[in-house]
């Protein structure tokens, strides 16, 4: 009995030792050593086919991807940064969280030390700036996509309400947000049973993102209570709610997803990444959605960077990979596959990109529309709790939509809630 046990144990132990040894050699950096790079993303970035291409050119690099949802991804990234282990070599960071990392950049590799300094001209200047720390000495991320904005609308509902359906004529309806809300009132008068927008929060957010300063000033001080463009956006949004234009849908609920296909509402603020979402959620509404310009001219909502946590051991190899993934040629492939719009302006004159259209959106020239929008973006400083501030104001608008509060009371509560965030 005993002898047989030993016969079993020895091979197991040997295999174990070999396995540990193999893992050990994995972690050594350098020339042709085998390297495994972990990439952690939220949602699908469309990188999968690119990994294969990269591995062909770099046979010593194995790439492993793990994907979780938006909130879970960023929360586990922060926990891993705090505990000093567990983070992937390459982590995606969305703009809503990026500003909290650039305020304390010491947990990331400084990409300027790895050779990123010479690449600056590749990106839109504001996209590059977003990845820089507050003191501008550390670069923590290279930009992937930008959320250049447009306005998606349902041609069938517009026709029923007696509004123009051609995208250029529709764009002319709303050069400003005031005219957008006025169009909504006309729409409601003609089609009282339907809604003009999905929810009021996106409209508010788009207006604030277009202003030269948003909810923070350049010194990271909250200015929700004193910035006139925030209050103006709020008042106009309240006006839209009062005329019953909002379908009051909470984003990312089953009702919201279903509404794209059922035609519950006629317009939605459309950052580039939203087009893929509409296409998957409204499969049987092909040809009914079209894309026009966003009121106010331009603006960016969302967008991400790729960052390298300091705990990752293969900094140089990881840097080489993100440099390649964010290069214009790769960003173009990603845009065609997923709709995520490139942050590299050299592509904005590339006919391959500007001529891109999608049959689902009545062959709307997505490339042209989003290029115009991204080029016109005025950079705006984003503060450390950017996402939480917008959520707090969004909740205030939600309370008005649900009839829980009068606009003035909701605004008072928003101000006191925002003050507590500071």
């Amino acid at each position, binding site marked *: 009995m005993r002898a047989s046990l030993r016969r079993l144990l020895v091979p197991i132990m040997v295999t174990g030792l070999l396995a540990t040894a193999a893992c050990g050699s994995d972690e050594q950096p350098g020339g042709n050593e085998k390297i495994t790079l972990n990439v952690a993303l939220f949602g699908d970035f469309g990188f999968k086919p690119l990994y294969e291409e990269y591995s062909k050119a770099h046979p010593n690099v194995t790439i492993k991807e793990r994907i979780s949802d938006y*909130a879970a991804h960023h929360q586990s990234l922060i926990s891993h940064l705090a505990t000093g282990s567990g983070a992937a070599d390459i982590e995606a960071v969305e703009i809503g969280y990026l500003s909290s990392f650039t305020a304390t950049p*010491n947990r990331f590799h400084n990409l300027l030390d790895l050779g990123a300094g010479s690449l600056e001209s590749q990106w839109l200047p504001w996209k590059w700036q977003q990845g820089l720390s507050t003191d501008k000495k550390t670069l923590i991320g290279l930009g992937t996509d930008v959320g250049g904005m447009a306005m998606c609308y349902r041609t069938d509902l517009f026709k029923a309400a007696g509004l123009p359906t051609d995208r250029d004529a529709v764009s002319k309806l709303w050069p400003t947000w005031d005219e957008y809300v006025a169009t909504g009132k006309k729409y409601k008068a003609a089609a009282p049973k339907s809604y003009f927008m999905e929810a009021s929060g996106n409209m508010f957010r788009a207006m604030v993102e277009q202003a030269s300063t948003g909810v923070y000033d350049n010194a990271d001080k909250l200015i929700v209570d004193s910035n006139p463009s925030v209050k103006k956006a709020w008042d106009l949004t309240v006006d839209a709610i009062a005329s019953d234009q909002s379908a009051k849908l909470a984003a*990312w*609920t089953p009702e*919201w997803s279903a509404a794209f296909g*059922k035609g519950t509402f006629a317009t939605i603020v459309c950052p580039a990444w939203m087009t893929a979402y509409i296409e998957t959620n409204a499969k049987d509404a092909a040809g009914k959605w079209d894309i026009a310009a966003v009121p106010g001219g331009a603006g960016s909502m969302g967008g991400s960077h790729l960052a390298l946590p300091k705990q990752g051991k293969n900094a140089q190899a990881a840097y080489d990979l993100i440099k390649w993934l964010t290069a214009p040629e790769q960003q173009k492939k990603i845009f065609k596959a997923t709709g995520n719009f490139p942050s590299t302006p050299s592509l904005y004159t590339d006919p391959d990109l500007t001529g891109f259209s999608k049959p689902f959106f009545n062959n709307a020239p997505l490339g042209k529309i989003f290029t115009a929008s991204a080029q016109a973006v005025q950079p705006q400083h984003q503060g450390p709790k950017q996402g939480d501030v917008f959520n707090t104001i969004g*909740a205030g608008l939600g309370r008005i939509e*649900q009839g829980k509060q009068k606009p003035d009371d909701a605004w008072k509560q928003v101000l006191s809630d925002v003050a507590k965030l500071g």
Partner: protein
Amino acid sequence: MRTWLYKADTQLSPYLYISPFFLLFAVFGLFPLGYTAWVSLHDWSLLADEHAFVGLGNYAELLADPYFWNALRNTLSILALSTIPQLILALILAHLVNRPLRARTLWRLGLLLPNVTSVVAVVVIFSQLFGRDFGLINWLLESFGLGRIDWQAGVASSHVAIAAMITWRWTGYNALIFLAAMQAVPKELYESATLDGATAGQQLRKITIPSIRPTIIFVVIVSTIYGLQVFAEPQLFAGGGPNGIIGGPDRQFQTLTLYMYEHGFNRGFEFGYASATAWVMFGLIVLAAAVNYLITRRIRSSR
């Protein structure tokens, strides 16, 4: 020497045998509990390197926050709406499957099915049932000439929807625990009661319930503990947006755990404040368990 060893063996060994549990509990239970208490005394943000000691400051701030009391009210309301119907239904179901039935095992297994289903699946399905525009329940209400309900928007309606999910998942499970206890009740008691002309309802009230009193206490306490920590149901019910953090724009269904999550994993990752919330919750749960014990102990004993 030998007798000493023998003595040591008989007296120490039992403790050694049970020690793995206590060692694991110390590492994974006691230590985190103590560490959380330590963290709760600091201004401890996950994003910062410095953690300043603030004493009981987090607790003072917590108890002064109206949103904390709102979360506590919501939690207690959902707890009452889910636990009470759940236990009454479980008792009745257990009583039913305890009788001679065709395909008894099948019925009993069926009771456990909702509990085997993952909580995410249950909430996704129920959220669609309770949908405002395309939900089955609103469709039924409308076809009976009643109005639609925006389930998420109202305080009471959102609590009812969440309580329905919890009740669906846990009723069968509790019924099985009741059933196990019921099978230990001597059959003679029922036989003589039947001879004396007692109805099924009287038998349930006068024989079954007093006989399974310890099990009822156990189930009530366990359900209360679960109910006070309910998280996945309201979080997923709200959808993937910010409502999943604050439980609706008016915080109409933010539970205590969601409140803790709001501070611990959003708004600058204030782990100190979230830890203080966790400790207050721990105190509340101990308190609720004690109160439950005192109340259910008063169920009249058969002896």
